[in-house]
């Protein structure tokens, strides 16, 4: 066995090196760029210390993005959490047509998100929106004065939050569903025998037992929401007047389209604190799983 000690490292090193080269190195490059004045297309740069951070924090558009990122993430995650728990309960037991219904419900998560968002762009069209049409028929809206779903700041924010919720809901639902089916059946049954009603069982047994898995759903959901820009890029491009701009989209417009590598990198660094918190919780969950 001794002469095979090199085999293990030889088997995992290529994968590790690939990840180090394309995740680890760029990760540190992002920090490095944030301390320089690097631009796309120029090879020279100078160290400017924390100048970029000062600049970015003074920029009202960035402050708006930071605030929007939290609103976007927190609102959509609350909606996802409520919706996913209800839906998971409704899907838990076997019923005729369960597989087909599950397929329909999963589509928003499994279809490419840019494509799904484009579908919503048509549904929320300023002129031909089907929602506006229904509203006109129900006499909620005036015929030639229907809401600009993506054109008014508050409505636009609401729209991107709801579309993102639509996209993330199935993911949280299947995670919670996996947790629900893992609860031993005899525990809720014993509670029922002891006279506990549906809600008592729900709040005193099911939800406490489900907490670890709900944490997982929230953790990944929050990360995937806080760091994503696809829905916003497709629906509003951060508009109108940057009212739906979030940190990732602001980093994209500054660093990629605006060619200001340094400032774009600085903006995206503001994603890191949440990732650190998430990594901490993940490690704790994994550690607990090992101990028990």
């Amino acid at each position: 066995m001794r002469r095979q000690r090199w085999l293990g490292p030889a088997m995992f090193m290529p994968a590790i090196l690939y990840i180090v080269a394309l995740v680890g190195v760029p990760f540190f490059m992002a920090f490095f760029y944030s301390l320089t004045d690097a631009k796309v297309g120029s090879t020279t740069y100078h160290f400017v210390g924390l100048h970029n951070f000062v600049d970015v924090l003074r920029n009202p558009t960035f402050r708006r993005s930071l605030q929007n990122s939290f609103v976007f993430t927190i609102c959509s995650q609350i909606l996802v959490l409520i919706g996913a728990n209800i839906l998971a309960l409704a899907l838990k037991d076997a019923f005729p047509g369960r597989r087909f219904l599950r397929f329909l419900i999963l589509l928003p998560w499994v279809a490419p998100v840019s494509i799904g968002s484009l579908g919503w762009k048509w549904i929320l069209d300023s002129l031909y929106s089907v929602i506006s049409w229904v509203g006109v028929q129900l006499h909620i809206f005036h015929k030639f004065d229907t809401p600009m779903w993506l054109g008014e700041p508050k409505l636009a924010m609401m729209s991107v939050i709801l579309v993102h919720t639509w996209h993330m809901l199935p993911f949280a639902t299947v995670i919670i569903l996996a947790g629900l089916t893992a609860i031993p059946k005899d525990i809720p049954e014993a509670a029922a025998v002891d006279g506990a009603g549906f809600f008592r069982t729900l709040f005193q047994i099911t939800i406490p037992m489900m907490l670890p898995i709900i944490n997982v759903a929230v953790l990944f959901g929050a990360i995937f929401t806080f760091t994503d820009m696809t829905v916003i890029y497709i629906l509003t491009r951060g508009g109108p007047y940057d009212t739906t701009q979030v940190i990732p989209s602001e980093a994209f417009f500054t660093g990629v389209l605006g060619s200001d590598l340094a400032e774009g990198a600085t903006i995206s660094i503001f994603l890191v604190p949440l990732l650190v918190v998430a990594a901490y919780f993940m490690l704790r969950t994994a550690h607990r799983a090992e101990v028990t």
Partner: protein
Amino acid sequence: MRRGWFGRLVMWGVRIVFAVILAFPFYWMLITTFKRNTDLNNLENNPFLFNERPTLEHLRLLFHETMFPRWVLNTAFAGLVVVIITLLLAVPAAYALARLTGNWGAQLGIGVFLTYLIPPTLLFIPLSKVVALLGLQDSLWSIIIVYPSFTIPFSTWLLMGFFKSIPKDLDDAAMVDGLTRWGAFVKLMIPMSLSGILTVVIFSFTLVTQEFVYALTFIASAAHQTVGVGVPTFLVRGDVYYWGSLMAACLITSVPIGILYNLFLDRFIEGFTVGAVK
């Protein structure tokens, strides 16, 4: 749990309401695909009905006058190469981390998975510099090189779970019978974890079709785009949206990917919930 008719009614109500809301955009894509422009653009019409005869014009336009077929091929090609790179690197790594290296193999495995959490929106700016250094800007190869950076971590993590579920005694017995460790891996472990490997193939492929940010950042010209970026950014001419063709493209892209992904979803979810469910 046994419930009365009222409970069952509520359950069905919840199921149907959610299914209608969640699947509605796809139904809307389907209707729009076959509607004439004059029908789509008439505000007097009931948009839920075909007020004029259905048409295949949008599909014809999509396949004959846009680069959509090209984007489909680009995506399929990129997906295929990414899957191959992922398998070559992730399968041995997962086995080694699951078996050969003891406890710190598990720690390293968690470390690998954690890199999956580092999002494209943090890495795209430095990576665009890396892509330029490699001379791959505006080439399909830029994303082929970059995508394994997120398919490998997830695949390694999933496969580690698979290899761990195969009893260690089995490889030991194979080695007593004269196979080397590598021989046991190739001749015994790979065939035994084929279903896990298939899962990884499907996931790496669907993750490629779903990725948006990197492709948008690295590839500028329409000819080298993938479906996910090409349809929303290049199928719009000026300010004119060809909604019929756009929705046709959306439908054609999302339903097959949806079906494929759906088949393997349970395994994918296991990857996220390891540790929280036992």
